[in-house]
């Protein structure tokens, strides 16, 4: 847990950050977001005192760390930055071992920890330990940067736009990996970004800052449904608000029992153009869809189920909807991890069915 109380930074008489108070619980993924110059980076860097704070207190767990010597504090807080800041003259293993070295861990413990972290990020220890930073791709370097920040098992991990400089494809992969690592380690994370989609994807709580002040601190779904003021509303972006909302909703919230056809051969597609049904095999795997195409006059009345247009319960509704549109079907089969048909999610469901608030929030 990390708590900021009345954090203020004044440069030359001007408040860059003013009275920011927020509490990020253990294991939460907190994201600070706002337009450039809003003070989000300054706030983050005040936490590990790379920028000395003018006023306020910082608590790590129950401990007031405001007066702790900066170096000691920093060794307890992981720090990852946009351009990785890897030391070019040290190998990957040496880079990761920096904080354990400062804390005087013994060699075998450090070396074990390095391997453990490389494995956590799916980097082969044998291959990567002795590489130098310039031999890594952008994505690999960023993984090593985060691994280094986690090396001494810090209480809190600070990340300053860590994926800002990588290409969109790599960024997506790194974001997924970050979610997985967060789940596996249960670390408390404070993450700075200016990208709302990134925030919505990663955060369990989002703090929106504007002109040095904390405007709203809420769970993503509340931010979308109950913006505190016009600034938040415009910052979230009105145009694709619906899609953003769906990006925080999951297929299992919209899932309905699948309409399985008992006698697929006798399916009558003339009865109603909107009618459809699934043909399944003996193991319960979906084979094909009868009907259910976007237009009644589509040639194929029987559509083979392929992996590209299926959904899983933990897929976002945004992605499910996107697949329906792209593959021109009214309904997606929802498959479990053994590819069995466990339900369906339909276009009408997205439009008409509003999951109860409780249900939507329960996912957060």
């Amino acid at each position, binding site marked *: 847990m990390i708590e900021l109380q009345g954090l203020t930074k004044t440069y030359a008489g001007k408040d860059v950050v003013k009275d920011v108070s927020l509490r990020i619980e253990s294991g939460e993924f907190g994201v600070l977001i706002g337009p450039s110059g809003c003070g989000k980076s300054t706030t983050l860097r005040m936490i590990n005192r790379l920028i000395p704070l003018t006023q306020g207190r910082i608590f790590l767990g129950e401990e007031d760390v405001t007066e702790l010597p900066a170096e000691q504090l920093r060794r307890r807080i992981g720090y990852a930055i946009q351009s990785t*800041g890897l030391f070019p003259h040290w190998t990957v293993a040496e880079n990761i071992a920096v904080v354990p070295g400062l804390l005087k861990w013994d060699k075998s413990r450090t070396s074990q920890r390095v391997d453990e972290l490389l494995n956590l990020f799916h980097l082969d220890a044998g291959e990567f330990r002795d590489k130098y930073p310039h031999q890594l791709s952008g994505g690999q370097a960023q993984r090593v940067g985060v691994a280094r920040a986690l090396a001494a098992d810090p209480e809190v991990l600070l990340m300053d736009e860590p994926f800002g400089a990588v290409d969109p494809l790599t960024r997506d992969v790194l974001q997924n990996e970050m979610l997985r690592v967060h789940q596996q380690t249960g670390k408390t994370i404070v993450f700075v970004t200016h990208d709302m989609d990134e925030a919505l994807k990663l955060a369990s709580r989002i703090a929106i800052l504007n002109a040095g002040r904390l405007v709203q601190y809420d769970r993503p779904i509340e931010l979308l449904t109950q913006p505190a003021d016009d600034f938040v509303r415009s910052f979230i972006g009105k145009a694709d608000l619906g899609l953003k909302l769906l990006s925080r909703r999951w297929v299992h919230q919209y899932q309905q029992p699948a309409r399985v056809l008992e006698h697929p051969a006798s399916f009558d597609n003339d009865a109603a153009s909107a009618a459809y049904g699934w043909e399944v095999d003996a193991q319960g795997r979906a084979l094909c869809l009868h009907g259910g195409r976007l237009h009644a006059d589509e040639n194929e009345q029987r559509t083979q189920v392929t992996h590209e247009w299926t959904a899983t319960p933990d897929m976002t509704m945004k992605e499910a909807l996107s697949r329906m549109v792209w593959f021109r079907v009214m309904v997606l089969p929802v498959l479990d991890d053994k590819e069995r048909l466990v339900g369906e999610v339909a276009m009408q469901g997205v439009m008409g069915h509003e999951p109860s608030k409780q249900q939507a929030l329960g996912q957060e």
Partner: protein
Amino acid sequence: MLSTQASNGRTRPLVANRVLLTLVIAAAIAAALLSFVAMAPNRLVSGESINLIVALRPWQWIILILLALLLASCALTRPFSSPSSHYLTLIAAPLWLILVLYGLGDYANRALQEASPSARVSQGAAFWILVFCPTLMILDAFQRLQTNLGLRGLYTLILVAVVAALFVTGHLDGLAIMHEYANNRDQFADEFIAHLRLVASALGPALVIGLPLGLLAHRRAGTRGALFGVLNFFQTIPSIALFALLVAPLAALSEALPLLRELGIKGIGATPAIIALVMYALLPIVRNTYAGFDGVAATTLEAARGMGMTSAQILWRVEIPLALPVILAGLRIVTVQAIGLTVVAALIGAGGLGAFIFQGLGQYAIDLVLLGAIPTIALAVVADFLLQILVALSRPPGAR
């Protein structure tokens, strides 16, 4: 002449390596037109010019012509293609170099047998060009091959060893410059050591003063203007003037303070020389130290701070290792510069190899001048080479 034959022989003169071809042609023209050696009845008069063909034995100049033809063909696109033509150059050029040296010594020994004891054999212009050209060919070939430093070092070492063997075995003793050496053997060793000592005792203080100043310039932006202004000013003072300017105040100081006099600090001699050399050495050292620290990425430093390194740990573990190649490059400049400037220091009685040069100039004895000049050049080249290796070794591994 030799090379024109070569290129006319091949009807399509598609030149692959213009540098090499130019060098071969230059060497050929020099060999044809300029004197290879000069034969004089004594050390003070200028001698009679003797051409390469006359000076060398037939087998020697025939091999030289063949080597020139081979090198010229290496410069063309055919018959040898890119990497093999460079390797061939690396074999032929040093053979040429050694043969020219050997032939020179051989001629001197033969010629002196029939002449009076005071007769002198000196190198002519063609000789220098014939030594210079293959050296450039070797450097050029290495440049094109982009071989690693270790291989280059080994090659140079072997070449130097062979050339040194020619001197040590006494094969070149007939040359006038070796006569001068024989006459001044003890003094040569003294002046050589004095030269090295002057350079070393200037570089030590220059590093001790320059490194912290460079760090200061990096840490405090406000000091930069004044600091570099002063150091640049030192650099603009002509060396002879600076040496001379220091004599009077130092003499006065030494007069006033007996303690200094006991320490051997006087208006002339080593003290003003070392002070002047330090003043000249400061700018490159301070500038490169500053540039080296400035080149460490800001994000690297931020990461180091963010992980809880202390300022001292950041300095010693991150900044210095990353700045070291640039700092050593500055040391390389300064060392070569100091070796050259120390020659001038002989004028104010500091000694060193410059003593021979000024003595030789005074006596019109050009071979005595060379006895000072050639070792100075060799010293500078060797120092440059060694420091180049040091710079390469100091680069972060993997980035070499």
